[in-house]
């Protein structure tokens, strides 16, 4: 049986069906998790999808971190459960303190949806091991509050510890400090990424299929896991 990857739906999640589709295309089994769940249904990894959880009315991701399912995700993430937060999921991971820093309103103030060039900066995580180091990919970016901010100390540490997993290439789309597009926690199992790999898994609907390796990576890492 293929690995079971949970996709959490919060009220206001939007890209949950896309994340589930990407998992299936990569060869995994997508398991729907509800924000009110008090059980992770034995999943081997979790994706927190994009969207506007709870309308993003307080701050993006700020209310989602208090959802019952998130306390389970936070506990398990601290002992190695692979977790990928995409866009709003990244915001939730930062609000939950699983990842350092925060995401702020784009410096140009507009929501932006475009095909974005990235460079993979680390293949040492279960979500990026299927890429080549330094590989350039193009996947959709779409956010209103995607500017990654953290203190100089934290940024220095992220780069020094090889925890910046992807950077923006070309024009910085949202004012992210040091062009950071995605980061991981110290252990590497928790990854936050602002652009959307789940929208680049089919040539018919995406600009590329460069998003697929994020999902094949985690499936490979799970096969290798004890």
């Amino acid at each position, binding site marked *: 049986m293929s690995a079971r990857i949970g996709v959490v739906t919060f009220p206001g999640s939007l890209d949950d069906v896309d994340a589930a589709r990407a998992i299936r295309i990569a060869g995994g089994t997508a398991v729907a998790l509800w924000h009110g769940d008090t059980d992770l249904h034995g999943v081997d990894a979790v994706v927190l999808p994009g969207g506007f959880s709870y309308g993003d009315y307080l701050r993006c991701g700020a209310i989602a971190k208090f959802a019952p399912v998130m306390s389970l995700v936070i506990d398990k993430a601290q002992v190695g459960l692979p977790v990928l937060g995409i866009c709003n999921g990244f915001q939730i991971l930062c609000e939950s303190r699983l990842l350092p820093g925060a995401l702020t309103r784009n410096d140009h103030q507009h929501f*932006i949806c475009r095909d974005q060039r990235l460079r993979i900066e680390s293949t040492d995580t279960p979500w990026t091991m299927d890429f080549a180091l330094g590989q350039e990919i193009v996947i959709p970016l779409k956010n*209103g509050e995607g500017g990654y901010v953290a203190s100089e100390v934290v940024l220095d540490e992220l780069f020094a510890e090889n925890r910046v997993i992807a950077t923006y290439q070309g024009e910085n789309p949202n004012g992210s400090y040091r062009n950071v597009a995605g980061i991981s926690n110290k252990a590497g199992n928790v990854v936050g990424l602002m652009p959307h790999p789940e929208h680049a898994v089919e040539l018919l609907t995406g600009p590329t299929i460069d998003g697929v390796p994020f999902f094949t990576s985690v499936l490979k890492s799970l096969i290798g896991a004890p």
Partner: protein
Amino acid sequence: MIDSVNIARESPDTEQPWADLGLKQDEYESIKEILGRRPTSSELAMYSVMWSEHCSYKSSKVHLRQFGDKAPKTDALLVGIGENAGVVDIGDGWAVTFKVESHNHPSYVEPYQGAATGIGGIVRDIISMGARPLAVMDPLRFGAADAPDTRRVLPGVVAGIGGYGNCLGLPNIGGELVFDESYAGNPLVNALCVGSMKHEDIHLASAKGVDNLVVLYGARTGGDGIGGVSVLASETFDANGPAKRPSVQVGDPFMEKLLIEATLEVLHAGLVEGIQDLGGAGISCATSELASNGEGGMQVYLDRVLLRDASLSPEEILMSESQERMCAVVTPEKIDAFMQLCKKWEVEAVVIGEVTDTGRLVIDWYGDTIVDVPPRSVAHDGPVYERPFHRPSWQDALQADTPTGERLPRPSTPDALKHTLLDLISSPNLASKSWVTSQYDRYVLGNTILAQPEDAGMIRVDEESGLGVAISTDCNSRFAKLDPYAGAQLALVESYRNISVAGAKPLAVTNCLNFGSPEDPEVMWQFAQATTGLADACLELGIPVTGGNVSFYNQTGENAISPTPVVGVLGVINNVEHRTPMAWAGDGDLIYILGDTADEFAGSEWAHLQGHLGGLPPKVDLPAEKLLSEIMVAASHEGMITAAHDVSDGGVGVAVTEMALRANIGARFWIPENIDPFVFLFSESTARAIAVIPGTEELRFSEMCAARGMRATRFGVVDSGLGVNSGHPGEQVIVCDSQFTLTIDQLREVNEATLPALFGGEKCSAQVSESYWDQ
């Protein structure tokens, strides 16, 4: 003091503000006749809002009947005109529903919220048919691009569409962005939504089954847009009076998202007998329409409505246009399950009444009956006007002013042609729209096959089979001003062509008819002409009108907008893998023009840039359009074609440039024999398309065209290696033989600079932020 039915009976002579509510004397008299007494203030509120132009279509009805009377025979139409939206069979047990609506006046008052709630309203129309919304599109029209008013309104409208649609999780797959002086002070903000469902999931707005319960669910009712529907949409807006600004509806896309999910879940669980969205006229409209379409009676306890503002009067509650609300009819056995699902999605719901067989809509307020009316008289049997109309006195002179070479000097040298092309592709109407569309999410849901700047938006409906639909909206209002009958047909055929060029077979039509005041006989003539033209052409093309929307009173003072019958065509494609994109890909592929090019510049983009409007619009040739459509669909299905693009605004020159820009690959082309280069490059003759054919398919393709009598002229070849020999090594270049050479970078630079220069500066950012305050 509540004005109850009893009080109304006892006080027949009470003065009532019917005129302030927009009712005419004879309309007020006819309400009294229907009721056999004076109306209560609540009844007066209901009738005034339901009999407004916006809700009752009283001026347009007699003309709209043609869409039914002249409807072509088709099996595709599952639900026709009259419901919230028409439903079309697309095969494999799937049905789609689509509709376009105007939100023009609210968007002028408060651009962000006006545009946002426009999206919200059209999406609820679609879910109330039982469909899952798939995508939205926005036809937008503003005054001159550099007018201060445009700079105020446009950024807010775009931010509102994005803010609401993005948060709702619906891809925005296209639309229009047109600038024309005629819209100064009266922008057009139309919104389209398309949804899909299995045949068995189709739901209708009717209150069936005596004793069934009427449930109001979604957002609470507040003082939003009270009277908005009649005041905002039916009277000319006076920009000078901020004090008169009515309260604006504020949208909550998060609530709408929950409402969609909750609604689809209760529908699929079989918990609903009838359903209706709340839009213009709020509870007045929903209860009267549900009752009128069902058993004919309903008892409502208005005091049960959950309020956001406890001080609202019953009249205000009836008229409130608070957003994100729905009304469902549920059997008593299923009500608990219904409420449970609402709770799951954190959507508040309350039973406000029940279905009766009394033939009356009775509304109580804390024990007093405040409304007791025959629901049909409110919802369907409103006044119908046969407004007088006549051909405008200026029409003949306008049509006589043909933009001939003598009247309007034409470019003739190669250099002048090159600059004409650059001027056109950098003009606001033809410049890249990505400043707008990059603010919209086109990827969400993962089924977007084509989105702007492609000719049509295309969405995959069934992931297994690849079944999909394509949609396009179009209207050149300059053509419609020159000749409203032909103009409406030209809007239809352009949209029809866009669908076909993308590889989909046109199936059905919707429309949003934006016009000036129906009380002006010249405007009414334009309306009559346009509806007749549209109905005649739909009959000939064999595609029915499934529904639509009329927006009158689009004018500033005495000046009506150019007639703008926006036409949306929906098509079906059996497998989206066959779709035809506009970007060419293969070196050596051959570039063909299908159809005939004549000297037709009246109403064209080129003439518009010269500040000229006159003459007769391009000739409409419906058989040629039909043939072109069949050829484009067959070529895509048979794999003969790698790219295609509609030829319309700006002609062949602009079409070829757009294809090269989209592909980022150059091409060489030439002017065919026996045609003037300027005419070939920039005329806007209809029934034409550019088709890109691989060499291996050329014979099959040209034989198909010849056999069917479609002129196909080869005039170019895709070539990524033109840079070296044209002095631009390493660059992609388009070469027009013995005329001009341009690099794609040059073209892109002027094409993409225009909108950011107009709207993207610091100034614009501040304005977005001001209306974007708490998003």
